[in-house]
């Protein structure tokens, strides 16, 4: 069995490519994948910064081609070309794939290293795979291991300290434009999780006012009550923008809502005052052409990535410690995964010995003429003898299978016990 991971993230692909892969519901893609013969298990993770599929396969090359076709045609609204898939997607196999999953869950591969959201997003992706029947025992184990690793990284290192959300990074960037955020007006467009996190971050900055504009007024109102903001509909955007110093947008939709015309008309109402626009929507909510307006400072996820990586530089020592933990946990999982190679041999050996035990009991019991109680005692006795004899060699086989060199033990076991031979020919001579 092989593990294979194909994906695209904020480092491998620019936002204009990533925004073409927006997945509302991963289940259809997962069902399609697991319906293929070569794929046994699959999990699909889709966030604003990454789309990744990890599969368990018996034929890695066929699975790779299958994933490539999935990225080309079945993820998102627009089809990607061969060049885009080959140029922007990465493929990891076995150990590398395991390591990547552990790093992603631990937020070491995140745009903002140490951010807490990715763990929840990974858990959600795993839950979807379990509910759709796409995950199985191996990926179950991998993801449970990844969650445990993430917890260990978070508790054993200080990686989660400092600006660990896009909103915190945005606040840092805002300070390069504004002397003080106190007295400034903020406008949040959207009412999703990212906006909620941003509201939490901005609440501490002493802004003069915060407005939430959303398509669904109820959700905006709900957030507004929680964060002492005011709720508005998207129709009010022209008026709201005229008064907004900080605009943070993360709302669904295939077309930008902050157009040059809209921004130009807002700027006319606020001459000489800069507007700081943070666009964390995927696809983008702000048209990049608004950059041409001198007073507009627009940053999208890719722009924030450079700031975030500089912030991470300050925590390099913690990063090294976190990577070491991931390395240890990867080794542990690799050992478990490799030990799976011993499973067919162990099962075969157990089945063969059990067959011998049952056959011998079948021969001996009629001659002994035992009552039911004694018969059960003899059965239990033979089972215990078999288990005790097999315990040490089977444990050894499992341990040795975790190492590449341990394969020789499996070979010898198969040879000694004739596990590859024809069962008819390995029937031991009748000693009666």
């Amino acid at each position, binding site marked *: 069995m092989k593990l294979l991971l194909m994906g695209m993230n904020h480092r491998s692909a620019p936002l204009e490519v990533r925004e073409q892969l927006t997945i509302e519901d991963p289940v259809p893609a997962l069902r399609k994948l697991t319906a293929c013969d070569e794929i046994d298990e699959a999990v699909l993770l889709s966030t604003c910064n990454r789309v990744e599929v990890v599969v368990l396969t018996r034929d890695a090359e066929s699975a790779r081609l299958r994933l490539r076709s999935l990225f080309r045609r079945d993820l998102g609204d627009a089809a990607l070309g061969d060049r885009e898939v080959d140029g922007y997607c990465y493929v990891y196999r076995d150990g590398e794939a395991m390591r990547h999953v552990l790093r992603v869950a631990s937020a070491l591969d995140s745009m903002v290293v140490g951010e807490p959201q990715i763990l929840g997003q990974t858990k959600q992706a795993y839950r979807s795979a379990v509910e759709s029947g796409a995950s199985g025992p191996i990926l179950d184990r991998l993801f449970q291991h990844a969650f445990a690793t993430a917890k260990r990284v978070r508790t054993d290192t200080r990686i989660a300290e400092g600006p660990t959300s896009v909103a915190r990074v945005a606040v840092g960037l805002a300070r390069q434009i504004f002397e003080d955020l106190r007295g400034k007006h903020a406008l949040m467009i959207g009412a999703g999780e990212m906006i909620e996190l941003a509201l939490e971050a901005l609440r501490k900055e002493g802004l003069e006012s915060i407005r939430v504009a959303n398509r669904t007024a109820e959700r905006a109102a709900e957030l507004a009550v929680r964060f002492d903001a005011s709720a508005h509909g998207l129709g009010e955007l022209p008026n709201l923008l005229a008064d907004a110093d900080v605009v943070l947008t993360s709302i669904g939709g295939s077309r930008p809502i902050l157009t040059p015309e809209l921004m130009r008309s807002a700027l006319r109402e606020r001459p000489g005052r800069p507007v700081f626009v943070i666009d964390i929507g995927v696809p983008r909510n702000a048209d990049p052409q608004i950059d041409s307006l001198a007073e507009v400072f627009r940053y999208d996820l890719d722009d924030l990535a450079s700031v975030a990586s*500089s912030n991470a530089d300050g925590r390099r020592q913690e990063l090294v410690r976190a990577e070491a933990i991931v390395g240890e946990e990867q080794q542990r999982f690799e050992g478990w995964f490799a030990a799976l190679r011993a499973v067919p041999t162990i099962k075969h050996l157990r089945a063969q010995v059990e067959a011998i035990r049952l056959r011998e009991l079948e021969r001996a019991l009629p001659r002994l003429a035992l009552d039911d109680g004694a018969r059960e005692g003899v059965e239990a006795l033979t089972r215990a003898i078999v288990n005790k004899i097999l315990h040490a060699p089977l444990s050894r086989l499992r341990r040795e299978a975790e190492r590449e060199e341990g394969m020789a033990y499996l070979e010898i076991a198969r040879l000694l016990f004739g596990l590859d031979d024809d069962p008819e020919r390995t029937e031991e001579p009748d000693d009666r």
Partner: protein
Amino acid sequence: MTALLLQLTALLYLAAGLLAGAALVVSHDRLSRVAVWGLGLGALLHALTFSALHSGAATPPLTSGPLAVSFMSWVGTLTFLALLWRFRLLGLVALVAPLSFLGVFYAALSPPGAVQTDLGGGSLPHAHVLLASAGLALLGIAGVAGAAFLAEHGRLKRKRHLARPAPWPSLEALDRVNALSLAVGFPLLTLGVVTGALWVRAIHGTPWTGTAHEIWCLVAWAIYAVLVALRFGVGQGARRSALSALGGFVFASFAVIGVELLQ
């Protein structure tokens, strides 16, 4: 004594500028603060220099070009230190301190014999030099803030190196410093021009003799008058204001100092 004090002042300004530059490179707030202390100490020594000038002559010989430039540096430094109380401008020490150094260094290098003390017009020459120098110093601060604004605006727009050096000021702070310096500097410059005209009239009987200095200075004042009208009357944008402040100061420096030197 005065020459030694000027040299020491120049040395302190230079050291402050170098420290502030290093603080920007290594993004070190504390080093920037040390540079501010160096600049403050330089300003104190600079004040002692003027005090020594006062004690050496009944009327301080500020009407010599180099000493007027030195005075301009001092006012500029003091203004900047005062602005530091209100705005986060630590990073600007790297620009202000070298300019202060150049002003003092120019005075320290100039021969003391060039000083004229009896210029006629009573206290008008000194009022003219003090007001015009103070005005130019503030407009210089506006120009420095404008240059820093343009650099910062370009960096933020290009979206390169967004993790800026920690002590560098925000765009908003630079724009406010620009506006404030222009708002105070222009009236001082205007008073400098008026006292200059009164001085010329006291000597020649007419406020206008048509010298190159008068022509260039009047043009510089007119340019600033337009800039002030654009900034506070029309509501010119921050970027254009920064560009105007920088251009205005370059022109004014040439009009006041450059033309004198060329003559």
